[in-house]
């Protein structure tokens, strides 16, 4: 049966068909739907772990127990999970272990543009790279075969355009793969120095065998056409090249991007006068070609930054650009904003009003950095708000009274807790605000340990954030409703003033959650004096029409923050 499937949905189908039994992941765009989709199959156990390191370790444990297992994450998630990955490369697997890592060239929804292929090379783990949904499904099955045959975890590299493009997939039945026998084997599975030394020898031997696999694999394809130009490429870039250059060039399409085959690359390069390496982000294939003595053209034309496309390839190789029309008028940008009724808005308004230095984190609330609130000073990675604030305050103790960290509920569970322990243990009088909107928001509403539900939607143990913060060593813990501006501001100022570390939990569910009841939309009346105080909230529902404030009834959810702010009772 043929179906139109998102790359991520096809990945889930591949896991299902390959007999995968245990899945543990942490959400991250563009990888999230793999795990959401696979959770729909009853035969597969699937969960959201608190972070990628935990997810990877769950998958490693399940593999050791004999099950085909999986964990998925975005590119930066693999940094968090790198620790178990690099040693799981040594232990190898029992049941097959497949890892999805989704890169985000162009940074549609990410804080950096790192190339995950470096992790594959550094951990000496094979990496496959599909280019469309059908290949995604086929490659996942091939990944399990390679994993079990070569005793290694296998990474499948996705990218935004593969993960979030739908194309046609031929759906098959699930293969019944029984659990492999579990036999205690400390030499293989207990990685202390004496055993790990032996396993490193194994890893190097395995890489040699994997290069042989890459030389003969059906995943590395050559397409010969007339002409004196060859193109070496992989993943979605292959599709851009095909669209731009068609049959005017020959292709070496690499489905296995680590390790790279030496013989195929050399013999392909020998056949052509000119060989282009077209790859997004870093020059990994190009460097390998040059190491093999092949004279190729790559990054000097295409650069290291952002996504490639058929137009870029056409322009760089053929010197042709497509004509187009544009308006003469300047078109205002439309950056993402916090939604109307977003519970984070009240907190950021209070922070901006009091000119507080804000150590930020990763989530919807990073949008607090945007105009007009501009209420964020730093954002680095998951959890860095809390640990970063501690460092900031150690360097500038006087800032303890005017600086806070903000972090979401899911991000706090991911890697905020350890930073909070550090604040208590190594004592700064830091103020941490947990923006508890009862969901993982930015990635599209996933459950987490603070919501009381699991990935399958069943009731689960619910972390008590107040009790947790106290247990971590913070005595001052208070809860506020961010829709109540006065209460929120009072709490922030009081906690900044005290000579003790404190946590404020700003608690109100995301306004987009289905169970959240909205109030009727608000309206402005004739009392509006055009003072524009309400515009300082950065609410997308409020704008100025004919000189007066006006509320868009299709967007407003009646949160009432603007009403609290209006001195003239002009909002009702």
């Amino acid at each position, binding site marked *: 049966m043929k179906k139109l499937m998102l790359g991520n949905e096809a990945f889930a189908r591949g896991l299902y068909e390959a007999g995968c039994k245990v899945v543990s992941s942490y959400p991250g765009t563009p990888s999230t739907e793999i795990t959401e989709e696979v959770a729909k199959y009853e035969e597969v156990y699937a969960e959201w772990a608190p972070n990628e390191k935990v997810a990877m370790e769950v998958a490693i444990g399940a593999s050791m127990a004999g099950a085909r297992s999986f964990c998925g994450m975005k590119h930066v998630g693999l940094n968090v999970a790198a620790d178990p990955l690099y040693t799981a490369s040594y232990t190898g697997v029992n049941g097959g272990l497949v890892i999805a890592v989704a890169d985000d060239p162009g940074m549609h929804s990410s804080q950096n543009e790192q190339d995950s292929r470096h992790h594959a090379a550094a951990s000496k783990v094979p990496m496959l790279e599909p280019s469309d949904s059908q290949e995604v499904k086929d490659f996942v099955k091939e990944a399990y075969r390679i994993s079990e045959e070569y005793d290694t975890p296998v990474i499948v590299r996705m990218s935004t355009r593969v993960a979030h493009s739908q194309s046609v997939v031929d759906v098959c039945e699930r293969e019944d793969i029984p659990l492999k026998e579990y036999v205690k084997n400390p030499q293989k599975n207990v990685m202390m120095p004496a055993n790990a030394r032996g396993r490193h020898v194994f890893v190097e031997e395995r890489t040699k065998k994997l290069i042989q696999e890459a030389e003969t694999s059906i995943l590395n394809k050559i397409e010969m056409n007339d002409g004196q130009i060859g193109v070496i490429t992989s993943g979605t870039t292959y*599709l*851009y090249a095909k669209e731009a250059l068609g049959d005017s060039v020959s292709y070496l399409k690499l489905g296995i991007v680590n390790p790279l085959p030496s013989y195929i690359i050399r013999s392909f390069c020998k056949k052509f006068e000119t060989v282009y390496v077209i790859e997004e982000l870093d020059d990994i294939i190009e460097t390998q070609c040059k190491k093999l003595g092949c004279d190729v053209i790559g990054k000097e034309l295409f650069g290291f930054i952002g996504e490639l496309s*058929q137009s870029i390839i056409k322009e760089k190789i053929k010197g042709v650009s497509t004509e187009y029309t544009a*308006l003469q008028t300047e078109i205002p940008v439309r*950056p993402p*904003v916090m*939604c109307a009724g977003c519970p984070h808005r009240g907190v950021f308004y209070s922070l901006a009003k009091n000119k507080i230095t804000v150590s930020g984190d990763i989530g919807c609330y990073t949008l607090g950095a945007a105009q007009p609130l501009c209420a964020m000073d730093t954002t680095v990675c998951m959890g860095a708000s809390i640990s970063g604030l501690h460092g900031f305050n150690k360097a500038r103790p006087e800032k303890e009274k005017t600086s806070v960290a903000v972090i979401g509920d899911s991000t706090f569970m991911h890697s905020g807790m350890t930073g909070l322990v550090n604040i208590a243990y190594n004592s700064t009088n830091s103020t941490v605000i947990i923006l508890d909107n009862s969901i993982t928001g930015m990635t599209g509403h996933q459950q987490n340990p603070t919501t009381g539900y699991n990935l399958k939607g069943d009731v689960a143990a619910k972390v008590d954030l107040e009790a947790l913060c106290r247990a971590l060593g913070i005595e001052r813990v208070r809860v506020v409703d961010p829709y109540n501006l006065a209460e929120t501001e009072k709490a922030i100022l009081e906690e900044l003033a005290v000579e003790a570390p404190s946590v404020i939990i700003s608690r109100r569910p995301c306004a987009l959650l289905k169970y959240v009841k909205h109030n009727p939309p608000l309206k402005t009346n004739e009392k509006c004096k055009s003072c524009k105080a309400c*515009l300082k909230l950065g609410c997308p529902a409020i704008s100025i029409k004919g000189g007066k404030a006006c509320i868009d009834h299709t967007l407003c959810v009646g949160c009432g923050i603007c009403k609290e702010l209006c001195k003239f009772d002009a909002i009702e």
Partner: protein
Amino acid sequence: MDTKSIMIVGVGGQGSLLASRIIGHVLLMQGYEVKVSEVHGMSQRGGSVVTYVKYGDKVYSPVVEKGEADLIVSFEQLEAARSLPYLKKGGTIITSTQKLDPMPVITGATKYPEDIFNQFRDLGINFIPVNALQLAEEAGSAKASNVVLMGVVSTKMDIDKEEWLKAIEECVPAKFLELNKKAFELGRECY
């Protein structure tokens, strides 16, 4: 046949993903190879959202580049203006007349361009303005603007109405089906 490209543009939350799924489904039912490319995550939070649909005998790249779109469907005027460079020479824009101020306009940093449609006319752009919001509210919900626009799109493509209705049935939750069918009809009737 040559590959055709459709671009769907709007503001996060307006339902462009559903629109692209309906078009993708109906094209798949006609036996074409279809690719639909979406962007999730950050861009959905009230930012500009772009979705591509490509179909034909063989489709390679899932993305649409400047000068390549045969049809642009826009949920909002400013987004129609922003997408214009993607229109192929001789292509068509179907756009809702709805205006949503982006944050730089709300904060007063810049102004919403007033005469977008006049500029389209001056440039000789083939465009169809649709009062999709009003028609959607007539059908029962402002949220159905996307399906009103699908009604207009259906009159510009050589595919039976019944096929479109089948695709809508597959893509829309049962409890909203009647509302969306009505929205689709209102879109068809307005052109």
